């Protein structure tokens, strides 16, 4: 019988399930490949920088030379990224900050040239998916 008490219980259960789903999606850790290689997306070519430093969500940065690929972990669906372009002596010559949204297992490679070149999304198919 649905009375006020049972209604409250069902409501509480629904809230808890929704909260659980929120915790799952916002706390899930994803493994992502970070790539600094030439790439072509929708007919447009994006060239890599000679040396870059990439940091996700204010975390520990990865240093990638042209043609390098590395792996890192990011948490949740929304991410901030900071890319610093370095010259030969290691000084920062250009800084680019951006945001992107990514969930799921598909397109699990982050292409730094794509982000710096203004591609619609920096997330591309990883070699495993291809």
């Amino acid at each position, binding site marked *: 019988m649905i009375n006020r008490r049972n209604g409250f219980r069902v409501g509480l259960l629904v809230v*808890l399930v929704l*909260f*659980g789903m929120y*915790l*799952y999606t*916002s*706390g*899930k*850790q*994803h493994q992502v490949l970070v790539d600094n290689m030439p790439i072509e997306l929708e007919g447009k070519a994006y060239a890599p920088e000679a040396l870059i430093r990439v940091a996700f969500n204010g975390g520990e940065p990865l240093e990638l030379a042209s043609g390098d690929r590395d792996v890192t972990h990011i*948490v949740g669906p929304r991410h901030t990224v900071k890319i610093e372009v370095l010259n030969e002596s290691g000084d920062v010559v250009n800084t680019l900050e951006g945001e992107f949204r990514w969930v799921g297992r598909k397109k699990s490679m982050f292409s730094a040239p794509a982000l710096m070149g203004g591609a619609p999304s920096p997330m591309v198919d990883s070699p495993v998916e291809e």
Partner: protein
Amino acid sequence: MKAYTTKEKIQHFLISNAVPIIFILMSAVAIPLSGFSATYLVQEMLIRLARNSFLVLSLIIPIVAGMGLNFGMVLGAMAGQIGLILVSDWAVVGMRGLLLAAMIATPIAIGLGYVCGAVLNRAKGREMVTSYILGFFVNGIYQLTVLYGFGKLVPIGNAELVLSRGYGIRNAINLAGMRHALDYLVPIKIGTLNVPVGTYLTIALFCLFIVWFRRTKLGQDMRAIGQDMGVAGAAGIPVEKTRIIAIIISTVLACYGQIIFLQNIGTMNTYNSHDQAGMFAIAALLIGGATVSKATIPNVFVGVVLFHLMFVVSPMAGKQLMGQAQIGEYFRVFVSYGIIAISLALHAWKRQKDRERARRSLRGEA
């Protein structure tokens, strides 16, 4: 009624606080022998107090309800571990991972608490030994579930968690993604000391909950049941239902306590982590001066500090004294289990003494 003399008052104080006094004296001898610096000991105590207090606090409510020391708290610890295994498999990390683990573990802990409470209602007066044995029984079910069910009935996708045969969980689980997620939620450093503020805030909230709970109708009912079940029943209090609620609350809180404990440690021993949870929490509470029938919040904190002080200093003191750290370690294990026996014996002796004192004071004898 006769007024007590100073000698009697001192005697009563010493008898009431015999266990903490023994431990303070032992610590006073062992600390200088160990050679540890004050900063190191303070840091260790800060971490261990945060790590263990929640588990020990979960024991208070069944004591209020007259059910003694809830050895069945390991049931809650197992529920917490199941939550952590699933969350590790789903790779949910940080504070969100801990909350999700607690959410998953809560219904399991409620179910186990209900079973435990129902069994204890059929074993009134022998709750401690019954809950102790029930812990072994449920441990068997836990081992069966985790060793054979996980990976077969419960899908586990993370290859790092599953045994090489394809089902069953590995002996050790790395909780690196959740390590110190609650402890350093609010990062505060005092000098060289790291203070796990997040956990202390949680413990403070829990203490407030206990203080508030004792004043509620349910809390008062539990107190009445703890004093005399027959009288409470005659007064219209649903004795059995209230006792089950006390055990459910204790089990759920022990489940959260185990999650807090393991996030501090950072690794989980799948098949053994819960084993020692009950015994060590009970030993700490008794060392703090609690008894089978009376436990307060200060008993918890005094007990955890004294018990863990012995944990830290005894191996080194043993090494300095006998030339072998292992001797100190054996001593610590002997003390952990021995203190439970001593406390129970002292409790029985004190109860007998109290009865004699009450009889004498009623008679007006010198």
